[in-house]
């Protein structure tokens, strides 16, 4: 039995995702550009998690950043709000065990129905993809990026479970197959698998030695890949999304190179999917 209060609070989590998307919203960016005030002018050094007013919403990217942050790429600005919101979301996800995640997803399903859940999931996939594309912070912020991969790998597992259970209509069922949802799910998954941050063999010694601890969770990824395999089969016959196909082929091609032992299973499952 879910209390109405809890439901309310679940919505708050959506607010974090919405906030992230709001920071990315072109209208917001345009407003920042248009309005001249202390908060909209770019500072050289951002204040992370500001506690006094005024603070600046955007700042120039650090000189050390290798790539411009996505949404504001032409001006090479760092949108501090994006990064902060992303981290809060990731931290929340990190702190909740799989059981809780699954439970909360089931709650949404039970109380608000599949449409709300699908909307929530799509929002989450979008945010995940955006973070993976380094919209929130540059790719050389190592610790933050490790966290991203760790958390996404972690949450994809319960999500795969719920996707498989709730969003694969039975043969002959009246329920339509939610193509969009599955497309985003695979987009995120393949983006994750093909992430450059996971190409261990290209790591520098420093990063390599520090990343050892997170090699192991990669096995989770493989499990996840196994989980989604049947779903992929479902989708195969219906639509081919150029995005996902591209990510998938990138992912597999990368896994192919050099006979890397650690991803051989992944390779097998993914090729099997295709």
């Amino acid at each position, binding site marked *: 039995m879910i209390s109405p209060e809890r439901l309310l*609070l679940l919505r708050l989590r959506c607010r974090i995702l919405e906030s992230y998307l709001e920071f990315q919203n072109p209208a917001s960016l345009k407003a920042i550009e248009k309005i001249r005030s202390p908060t909209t002018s770019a500072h050289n050094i951002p204040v992370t998690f500001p*506690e006094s*007013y005024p603070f600046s919403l955007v700042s120039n990217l650090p000189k050390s950043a290798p790539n411009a942050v996505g949404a504001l790429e032409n001006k090479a600005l760092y949108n501090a709000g994006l990064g902060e919101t992303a981290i809060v979301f990731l931290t929340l996800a990190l702190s909740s065990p799989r059981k809780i995640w699954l439970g909360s997803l089931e709650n949404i399903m039970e109380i608000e129905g599949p449409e709300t859940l699908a909307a929530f999931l799509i929002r989450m996939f979008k945010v995940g993809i955006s973070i993976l594309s380094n919209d929130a912070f540059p790719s050389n912020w190592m610790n933050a990026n490790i966290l991203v991969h760790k958390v996404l790998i972690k949450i994809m597992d319960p999500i795969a479970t719920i996707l498989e259970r709730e969003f694969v209509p039975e043969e002959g069922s009246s329920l339509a197959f939610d193509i969009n949802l599955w497309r985003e799910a695979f987009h995120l998954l393949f983006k994750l698998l093909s992430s450059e941050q996971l190409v261990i063999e290209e790591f520098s010694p420093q990063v390599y030695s520090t990343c050892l601890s997170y090699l192991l969770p990669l096995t989770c990824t493989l499990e996840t890949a196994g989980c989604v395999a049947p779903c992929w089969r479902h989708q195969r016959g219906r639509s081919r999304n150029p995005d996902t196909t591209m990510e998938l082929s990138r992912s597999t091609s990368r896994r192919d190179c050099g006979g890397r032992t650690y991803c051989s299973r992944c390779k097998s499952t993914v090729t099997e999917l295709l």
Partner: protein
Amino acid sequence: MRPVPHVLLLIYTYSFSSPRYAVCSHRRAPVTWYPSTSSYKTAAKVDDTQQVFIGIFPKSHIFIRDESPDAEGRLAEVAAMINNGQSAEVFAQWTKDVAAMEAMKEEEEPFAHLSTRKSFKLAPPPDQANSVRARLPVYPASLRSVSPTESHAPKPLPPRPSLKSGDDTISGAEQPIVDEIASALREWHTLMFQYLARRDYRLFQIVREHIEALHLGRRQLLSKTLSAEETINLRRQCVARLVNGNIVQGLDIIVRHPTWGGLVTVDVEGELDTRSWVSAVRMYAMQVSLAYSEPSSPGVWNLGAFVENATTPGNPAFSSQTALQEHARLRSNSKSLGSLGTPHSPHPTRAKFYHVFLDLRAFVASPCAPGETAELFFNLYKSDGARFVSEEFCAVLNHQGVLARDPTSRIRTIFTDILQSDAQDPIYLVCKIVRNGSMKMGSTMGSILEGGRRTSEASFRDGPYPVGFNDSSTTDVSMMSGRGQSDLPSHFRRPFGCAVLELTQLKQMATEQLEASSTREHTMPIFVPTHENTFSMLHQDILNNNSKEFQKSPRFVGSISLIRPRINWSFYFRAEMLAVSIKVFYGDAGTIIRENTSLLQDTPLSLRLGFPDVVFPGDDRNELYIKLWSGDFTASQTSTARRSVTNFARGQVSTTGNVQISIEVRDQYGHTVERSITQCSGEPEMSQFHSMVFQRTNQPTYGELIKVKLPYHNAQALHLFFTFRHRNVRERSIGRSADLSERPFAFAFLPLFPDSRAFVEDGSHTLALYKADRISQISPEIYLSAPFWTPSSRPDQVVIPPEMQKYAPLLRDTLIIRSSLVSTKFTQNSVLLSLINWDKISDREVLSTILTMFTFVDEKDVVRFLQDIFNSLFAILVSSTNQGGEMDHLVFNALVTVLGIVQDRRYSNFQPVLDVYIESHFNYPTASSHMIRSMNRLLLDPTANETASSLRAALKVWYYLLKFITRSRELQKQEEGLSSASSTEQSEQAFKRELKSHLSEVNRMMSTVAPASIIGTQTIALQHFTSILPELGKVFPIVELVSIATKFANAISMVKGKMVIWKLIMYLQIVKGFLFDNPQSRTLLVDSVVSWIKPHFGKFDEYMHGGDSDAAKDTARIAWLESIRLSITVTAVMLDKLQQTLVSPAILADKIALRQEQYNIDTLLSLLPRYV
């Protein structure tokens, strides 16, 4: 493959840190160039003689075989095992295999890509290959030291992928930073070649320095000889260097624990290493601030600083590297960490200032003949505002350039208490040189005869120590005056020269916020004025480069200078330069002197001119600075000159000018107060000060500073007494008996307390000069009744008592002095005086007037007498005069005014003083209800004209008001502790009721919507509400505090514009505060906070927030983004704190608590998604 016919050239490259081998082969000539281990010996003996690495071998000794990369067919097997998920075991097993067959490692390297090529073995022919060990690995010459036994030790693992990093060491398991450094160095090392190839030498040098410093640091860490604190400092520096090294090279930004050194972990599940754990949001904040840290310029990095810091205990970790500041800021509550920074330490701390240590190393000048002395006056000068910051440090040197009074001692001082604001502007060290000797300098006297005579006379008179300080106890004259020699008629204090040095060190330190600079040597060229009259402004002329006004001091050397133009310059100049070394400290002077005893013990302190910001209770200074500025003796000169001419008819020297002023401190009976004048620091006290003598001018500008030590009692009776004499260079040759010039021609005086209540005001005073011919006939009583100053405009209107007029008529001459009082004892403000002595005022009206006037007293005066003022104010509050509370609001306003100074940045050190006072000096147990009542009175009518501004001012210092209130309640409790429990309980209840009524008044004010002007007051209340919570916590249980906070938050009805921001910031302060640290209140708060922030983030609702125009919509959008960010921050702070409780070491250590806490974690985590 066809056997190689003739010759092989084998090139083996061996990378030491990662075992990769590259093997190349070439065919050239019929000889085998054979990098091997023995010189022309058979390969069978190779094991025994490995010391020689290069040799030539007959072809018959080379066995060549074709091989594929996987000659032994094991690769597939290994791969299969790894595929089966047994990678760890496989690698372990594999390691053993490799160790056993280390000689063959190259071939078995599954991932070294070069191994796919054909490689050649150093091996005996098959018939001799009885042992695998015969096939030795080939090392470059740099590995000569490798002994045969070591070569059999297990080699590092092959390259990645593996589950162990190649840099793992046992020490690394203890201190991860050791391995972190190793892997970073390995990576940088490989990149160095690229930088060289790109000819980026600058980067190359920077990285090289980083590598050297880190390597050294790693060795120091490994040696484990450092103390715990030093180790932490060293680790911190290494971490900072690792980050900076990566940043300059554009590599990944890696957050390592600032003091532990390991990569930070953010996991909250599983096995945690609490030493390197930080919460994920904190990690992110660190990540951002590291990414934005500036890689420092190559010049700043130096190995020296690194070593020095690592080995000097107590030295701050962040001495000379800007980049380390980033971590410094991480450690101390930093702005870049935003809301995750720790709150201010509640303990009162001493204020910190800059202190400049000066050591005079050499005085390359000879302005004085034997028997004469040179007086060096050092002080700090600020060009902005053209003022001296510190008092003068005086050193009297003899003709050999050493301290006259003690030739063996060092000439050192420390200029104390330089403010941050001073240090940011250019500050100069100014040294003025005064020559104490004959009226004219030797060079102009020129002749051998005269010079010789003078020398012999001087040495005859003074013995080995030319200046008579050492025997000051033996003669009355020198006891009277520290400057014994100037009493000798032939010796005058004469202007000589000046040297200036900009203290860039100080400015650099101020910008980099370091704790101590390194000692640096500087030279200061000495210049002399073109005209001696401009001597007092010489430093400004030098700074402004008015080259007409000064020059290098020439020395008369005759024709020699023409013949040998390349001779050492110092020979030509009478005064070449000074050499000084400077070190700057930051902190509290007492602590710094304690910590640097060897350097600073017995070093005279040259104090700041005036108080820094505030005066701490217990600080003690009581002195008056007098700057002898200028005189105008034109009026009396005419007559004196005439007389001189008649008396000394030689007529060749005019005696006009040459006025010497003597100053002494006298009491009301005319007795001189002995040893009360100093030339500031360095030299001993004197009883009479003699000024410089300027030749041939009737309007000399002296610019000399003296310090008068004030006694704590009877200072009211003292006055300064000035006498004026003409000093003539020719007098002595006529004979001292005449001694006419020894008689003063005029005198002046300055009473310290002109109206015998308040001290003489700071600033410029034009003193009246009286004729001194019959001075012996005037008693001090008579002249003290005459005016001591003349109004510059109408000197005629001065009223002189008749007796004075008779014996000592007023002269038209004047003397301008400047006075400056630095005292914790005396004040110049009469209102302040009245307030402090309020108990002598019986009239309530007068007291009210004084309290009203008090609010206009200058802040600088207020901060000096803080303790006395508070004591007086509270004494009035609880006095019998105020039984009916009539004075409440006046006292309250005065109190708020004083506390309001805390808002002023100029008095940034005010806060600790106040804390010290409240903690240990405040003692008025009944003051609390008076204060609460006054506050509530203001809240009753928050918008009325007369109360609105008072209320705002009071809300700004709400925290301190509450602090006084709770402290007085504490004192009350201590008193009540003696009486019965029931009465204590009663008064406690009464007190709580009073406080609650105050809070509900506040809430009522917060809920007001009209008029619009209330918003300002509400905003101030919002901004300061959280500051009072800790104080309320002393009275109410913590659960009740939550409801107080909730009531306040919910009372705010108007949520428009910036109010949203202030409201969110208040929530942020609440979750940052102690309420969220307490498990009881946290549970209650989480729900409230979530419901508070919920409406302020998420999707932007254009219809709800937007205006009609595009601009209004954009503004609304920006406001929305701001509130999102603050809401996210509130969430982040909550997450940070919740995560911290999950990994607290105390809980992890206790098994029962751990189980309990794990249960809690489950509950908490099940709640966590709910929360947000």
